[in-house]
């Protein structure tokens, strides 16, 4: 292969390094007004009145929209396709019944951002407060329930396989509690909306993961036909799931339509933290049964997810979490009981990995506990349980194809010097008082498409310009991880041209084909293959046209080096530009094609991460000494970008394990500043090592590729947590393992 498999910067790296790239917050349309939301200051209650008079009195304030002067209609932020009619519409743009500190009550529009913010502070809201709850216990007790409401909003019991009857099984119990997390995409959520009242045409620009999903939600919400709503995916400053649910777009759209002027809504960091979505708080108990040799016989999991103020995606989320149990290990019997509760806290939603990281944290913690109980090495225990090439996903029956998790563990054990490190740590720990070292391993699996949860497909449109360059239209949503470049490379490979000769516009409902969006890690796998098919269709057209124009037998023609050639006669060479032009001049036809790809597989895609840490028992501070990520990726299209993305996942995982936590205080206020939400910075991390296993190729992905963006985050936090527990000889289960948490554990240990 000439292009696929070779590394390069992403398509807009130059413009980003220059500061030239325009993100949504940088857009300024003529006549545009700036929005600032007025948010609930109480966790639960009814809005009695909104007094906008003082705000409206400021010169330059164009309007105040609130729960009493806007539509009663509702929408569902999580909806992403036309067919999800079962999802309840539970949200208004502005509500008179607030369910958390940060719920939207009103919005102020003004001639400048500063003025909008100032005016928003002048809007007075009268509330009637209701009892509220912020944690698992008070919510389960029904403290915030209105008459007739039940604390549990959804509940599910699922089972696969039959309960084992073997003798001599060993029972292992574990408990894990995971806090709310913030995505911390550096660009906060934003939307610019422009409404043309004369053509009733709405245009939305936002960094988002599904232009067609937003169209469904906004068109239904505003009762507009789909062709009158155009959604354009703008440059995205990171998402990690934060930009795949819609709470900015419907609000901006409503405001633009009501005010008759273009509007811009950009969240502050505090709003992105508390007024958008978070990863929901979870706690889970697992009872496992193992053979004395360490084989899993049964897992019984009981889990609670706090959806926060709105149920949103949580019903689907708990079900998906269960399905992740079958993506990495052979689990012959599993029983699962999960409940969703709804407290008065920020809304839970999508987060990188969409429940797989939580599943992995719960299960990997359990396997560490099992290894401890069985006296087995933690890598070895995992080796004995991982899925092997040819296995199937026991939940869905879908083949896992060339899954390579065993190889990932083996390769990692060797590269990381696992056995030697364990010995070195034992010596180190024996010879000093203050510092304790430990190693950890984490495994995780994911998918590469929606299939079989939904049927998945992609569509591509392609045209050759008169100079032989390519216009490609596939609805992609690049988060900054290079999916545009990936698609260009795939097309370039098929047509044997440089990828710089391919132009690809991102998702735009007016200009690119229908697509489900950048969910389920499906972009490389589904859309990459769609690009292969689309380029292949164009190749066929090129050959047919060349045969007709130059009177050649079709079967003698082939493409190479950006030209159609004749196998029998090396002197017959027609550059693409020539074919494109003659096709127009002689045949009066454009060289273009269209293709669809229907996806019917979902191969196993996995990773094994290894962490080596040092815990300071005086300060409780944990330092990451070494980190290795081994990913079973199939073909890496742009390997250096994959590596960079995997290192980013390791950074996020270290954060989730050791630092990151959104704390809700008694009054319902949640962490709303990066000064209290601690992220890993350059000096805190070692050079994260990455190893790609590329021989576990998929059958359907482009050139054998599988997904990477989410699966690489799944094993990260488990590896680091395992290392801390190894260092301390502990079985800590409540994340994150902050210095405080470590010191408390050590103090408890000293007492006993």
């Amino acid at each position, binding site marked *: 292969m000439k292009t696929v498999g070779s*590394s390069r*910067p*992403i398509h*807009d*790296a*130059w413009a*980003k*390094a*220059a*500061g*030239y*790239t*325009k*993100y949504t*917050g*940088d857009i*300024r349309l003529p006549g545009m007004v700036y929005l600032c939301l007025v948010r609930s200051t109480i966790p639960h209650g009814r809005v009695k009145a909104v007094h906008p008079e003082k705000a409206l009195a400021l010169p330059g304030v164009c309007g105040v929209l609130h729960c009493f002067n806007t539509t009663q209609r509702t929408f569902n932020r999580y909806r992403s396709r036309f067919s999800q009619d079962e999802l309840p519409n539970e949200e208004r743009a502005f509500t008179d019944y607030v369910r958390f500190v940060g719920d939207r009550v009103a919005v102020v529009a003004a001639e*400048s*951002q*500063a003025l909008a913010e100032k005016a928003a502070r002048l809007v007075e809201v009268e509330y009637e407060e209701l009892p509220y709850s912020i944690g698992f216990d008070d919510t389960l007790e029904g403290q915030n329930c209105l008459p007739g409401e039940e604390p549990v909003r959804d509940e599910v019991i699922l089972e696969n396989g039959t309960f084992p009857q073997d003798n001599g099984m060993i029972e292992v119990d574990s408990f894990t509690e995971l806090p709310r997390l913030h*995505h*911390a*995409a*550096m*660009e*906060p959520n934003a939307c610019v909306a422009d409404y043309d009242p004369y053509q009733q045409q709405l245009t939305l620009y936002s960094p988002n993961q599904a232009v067609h999903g937003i169209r469904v939600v906004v068109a239904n919400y505003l009762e507009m036909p789909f062709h009158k709503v155009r959604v354009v995916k703008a*440059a*995205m*400053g*990171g998402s*990690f799931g934060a930009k795949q649910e819609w709470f900015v777009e419907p609000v901006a759209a409503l405001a633009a339509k009501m005010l008759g002027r273009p509007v811009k809504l950009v969240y*502050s*960091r505090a709003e992105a933290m508390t007024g958008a979505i978070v990863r929901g708080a979870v706690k889970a108990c697992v009872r496992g049964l193992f053979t004395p040799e360490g084989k899993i016989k049964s897992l019984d999991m009981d889990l609670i997810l706090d959806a926060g103020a709105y149920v949103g995606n949580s019903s689907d989320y708990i079900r998906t979490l269960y399905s992740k149990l079958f993506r990495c290990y052979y689990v012959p019997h599993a029983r699962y009981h999960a409940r969703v509760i709804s407290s008065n806290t920020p809304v839970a939603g999508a987060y990188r990995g969409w429940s797989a990281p939580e599943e992995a944290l719960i299960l990997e913690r359990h396997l560490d506990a099992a290894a401890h109980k069985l006296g087995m090495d933690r890598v070895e225990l995992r080796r004995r349980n991982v899925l092997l090439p040819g296995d199937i996903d026991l939940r869905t029956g879908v083949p896992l194809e060339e899954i390579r998790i065993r190889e990932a563990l083996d390769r990692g054990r060797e590269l990381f010097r696992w056995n030697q490190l364990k010995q070195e740590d034992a010596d180190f720990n024996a010879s000093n008082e203050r510092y304790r070292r430990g190693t950890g391993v984490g495994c995780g699996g994911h998918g590469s498409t929606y299939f079989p949860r939904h049927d998945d497909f992609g569509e591509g449109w392609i045209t050759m310009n008169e100079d032989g360059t390519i216009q490609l239209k596939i609805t992609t949503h690049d*988060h*900054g*991880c*290079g999916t545009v470049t990936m698609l260009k490379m795939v097309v370039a490979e098929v047509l044997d041209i440089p990828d710089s000769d391919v132009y690809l516009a991102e998702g735009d409902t007016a200009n690119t084909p229908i697509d489900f969006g950048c969910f389920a890690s499906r972009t490389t796998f589904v859309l990459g293959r769609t690009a292969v098919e689309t380029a292949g269709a164009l190749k066929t057209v090129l050959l047919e046209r060349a045969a007709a124009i130059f009177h050649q037998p079709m079967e003698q023609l082939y493409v190479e080096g950006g030209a159609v050639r004749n196998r029998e006669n090396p002197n017959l060479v027609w550059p693409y530009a020539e074919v494109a032009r003659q096709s127009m001049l002689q045949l009066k036809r454009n060289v273009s094609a269209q293709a669809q790809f229907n996806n019917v597989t979902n191969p196993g895609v996995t990773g094994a991460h290894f962490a080596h840490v040092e815990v300071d028992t005086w300060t409780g501070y944990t330092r990451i000494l070494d980190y290795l990520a081994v990913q079973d990726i199939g073909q890496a299209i742009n390997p*250096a*970008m994959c*590596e*960079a*993305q995997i*290192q*980013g996942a*390791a*950074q*996020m995982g270290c954060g989730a394990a050791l630092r990151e936590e959104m704390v809700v205080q008694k009054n319902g206020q949640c962490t709303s*500043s*990066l*000064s209290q939400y601690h*992220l890993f*910075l*350059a*000096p805190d*991390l070692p*050079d*994260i090592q990455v190893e790609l296993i590329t021989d576990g190729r998929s059958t359907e992905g482009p050139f054998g590729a599988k997904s990477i963006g989410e699966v690489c985050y799944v094993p990260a936090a488990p590896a680091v947590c395992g290392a801390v527990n190894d260092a301390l000889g502990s079985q800590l289960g409540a994340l994150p393992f902050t210095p405080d948490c470590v010191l408390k554990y050590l103090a408890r240990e000293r007492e006993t």
Partner: protein
Amino acid sequence: MKLSFCVNNRPVQLETDPDRRLLDILREDLSLTGTKEGCAEGECGACTVLLDGEAVHSCLTLAIQLGGRHVVTIEGLSETGELDVLQKAFVEEIAVQCGFCTTGMIMSAKALLLKNPAPTKEEIRVALSGNICRCSGYVQIVRAVDRAAHELREVAYGKPDAKNTG
């Protein structure tokens, strides 16, 4: 107040409130949108610019502090339309993903190299400790700064510099 200062080597005069943030002056009054806002409280570094050669958070720098001083923004590094050494190194080392941290990161690195043309990798990491990148593990970013430092020294001294980079 009347404010006269210098932005990217050009004199600028404007009428503004003394408590207006440099970040807003750049983005709104001067349309220099390469400088980003990620937190508005000095935590993320996305808004970093040079003020008389020092890296500062433009979200915490007010108009009243600016009179007669010289600000360099990311746009000031590539005024001819060509990326400077540091920007190119970020691109070529694959240090750019979503790009939202990139401009601030580059300005922090610029300030470092102005003071210390031969930083160790450790010094680079420390100099970037006020800049959050959520997309990466900082590996390529550190490599990019290291590479730019080497290249700049080559330009300055005509040959690869022997000083190690830790």
